[in-house]
């Protein structure tokens, strides 16, 4: 019974999120300039966005009538470790921010150290050695071998220090 109530509660939340996404895309679709034809560039985005809102209403009605089915293993967020989820997402955000400020090499270093810490690694020497290996390997693979654009950091340009790895 408790499980069922929990699932109903989650399903209300899911319906709200789907409705929000649908409404968001309806507003986005309204920004598309329409042509004189009945069917233009706005038709399909608008139809899909409205369908999303209708889907959300269906989900809401299902939850309201309590017909959400049995709770299956892995459903919901009861077992979720919010701290760990936030840490992993934080590592990603740190990677993007460092990439923008200091370039690719530094982003791998900071992102990998943060990810190791998030996964519970606490051994200093292991963190240092594995991070150096990882950063050099990815710099060599992506910027050296694959010849991707290695943009300079907005704050500090670290590329003169890593060019020997990339082979530039």
């Amino acid at each position, binding site marked *: 019974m408790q499980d069922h109530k929990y699932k109903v509660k989650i399903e209300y939340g899911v319906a709200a999120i789907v409705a929000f996404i649908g409404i968001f895309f309806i507003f986005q679709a309204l920004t598309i300039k329409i042509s004189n034809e009945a069917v233009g560039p706005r038709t399909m985005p608008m139809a899909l966005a409205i369908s999303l809102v209708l889907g959300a209403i269906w989900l809401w009605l299902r939850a309201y009538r309590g017909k959400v089915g049995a709770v299956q293993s892995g459903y*919901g967020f009861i077992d979720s470790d919010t701290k760990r989820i936030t840490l992993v997402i934080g590592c990603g955000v740190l990677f993007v921010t460092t990439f*923008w400020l200091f370039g690719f090499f530094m982003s791998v270093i900071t992102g990998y150290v943060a990810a190791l810490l998030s996964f519970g690694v606490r051994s200093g020497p292991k963190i240092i050695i594995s991070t150096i290996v990882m950063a050099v390997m990815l710099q060599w693979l992506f910027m050296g071998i694959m010849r991707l654009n290695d943009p300079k950091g907005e704050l500090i340009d670290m590329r003169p220090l890593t060019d020997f790895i990339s082979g530039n």
Partner: protein
Amino acid sequence: MIFADIIGGFQTFFADPFAIYFVFLAAFVGMVFGALPGLTAAAAIAMMLPILIVYNDVIGGLSGLAFLYVVGKSGRYGGSIAAILFNTPGTAASAATMQDGYPMSQSGRAGKALKTATIASVFGDYFGEIVLIFGAVSIAAFTRQFGPPENFTIYLMAFVVIGSVVSDSIIKGVISTLFGAVVALIGEDTITGQFKMTMGIDELESGMALVPLLIGVFVISEVIIQAEKAVKLKLVDLGSKKIDDPTAHYFTWVEFKRCLPLMFRSSIYGSLIGMMPGLGSSVACFVAYGEEKRRAKNKDEWGTGVVEGIAAPESANNAVSGPSMIPLLTLGIPGSTIAAVLIGMFLVNGLQVGPQIFATEPPIFIGGNMMSPREFIFAIFAGGLIGIGAYGLIGYFFAPLVGKTIAVLPTEYLYPFIFMISLAASYSSRSSISDVGFAILFGVIGYGMRRTNFSAAAFIIAFVLTTSMETAFRQSMIISDNGLLVFLQFEYMNKFSYAPIFLIIGVLVVGFRAYSTISKSKRTQA
């Protein structure tokens, strides 16, 4: 004609200096990723796709496509290693294998379980590949005549069918499809050239890229789940238990003969399920397991470690692989996530997937050689046939070693490593930092979808299909004299139209699915 094409495919394949190496590499890589619990062939492909695209001109299109194709096959097989040795399905496709595979390992017969899984997988995969080759060519000859109205209704039918069958809940499957479709429409309009729903972000003017989306929903969401779990894999005891049976580590000839009819039937189930867009290996393995258990004389022994309980689901889940390409190659509809990703790789090589891929003209320039699309696709089939043998050989002799190696891998280093590779791979698709941000965003969305029973596969398939669907819809409107009625008429531009038939099929499938869901729900309540 087809036999000559197959022989020609092998000749083209062996003429490529890289192809054979890439196929063996794919057999190994797919097997390892499949055996890693949580990671799937789709995750492996998502991470490797940008690298293959960058190197496409160097290695040639054939090697890259054959690599991705074989990773999909060996990834399905690799899942059985984890199911048998760790009691955790490496992929959803091997969940049924666990029921007899793990008890057999616990009783000291892990070798027999692994070899049974290998032989059954190879059998099923070869069966499916033959169905693909003969089926696709025949169906493509018919579907080649389709125009925009038929194409639109096929896409619409695929959306509805995939959405309704891919998830436990019809509405959630359909919403996953709608979400993928609306995200796909961000960017430049294919007909007028104006920018749509870009939210003022310049990077979105060229649309959302496939690679960050794939990486987000399949890899980053899995990294988040693994961070939550932080559990170590526990390998079954492979050595210490001594038993008298000299055949404990072999799949004997007698057992093979006993399982042959069962593997044949299971391969048929798998092939039929594989042809239907959206239904994948995870459905096939349970259907085959359930059906063969029902037919078995020793059904009481099933679940305690019988070879039949491994052979049936493994034949079925691998038999899905080939036929799941039939909708892609004959209608342009990817039947699975892996097929959806292959569309991108075909486009990189200048090939539009669909029935025209079996055309003998015009010749295309791939990997430094001129060849017809038909020669190219048969070379990929040849790569698939060789790839099945490759993962069969590697798996037969080295599956226990792969399992032991995975068991000692420190997950606290492995998943951060995968996380960094996936972020870098997101960047590499368009050299855009924004794409890394999108990958993280879709990682969070993918995590939420998995926790609330939405379908990531339906989302990705819809994302890949929608642009073509919109184009077909608007082209139909241009050629139509009666507006939307063109989809309901059996004739347009003085030729017969199959469009209403596809709409009827879509409605029937959804109706049947809704009926079975309601019946099941009533039975549960009773």
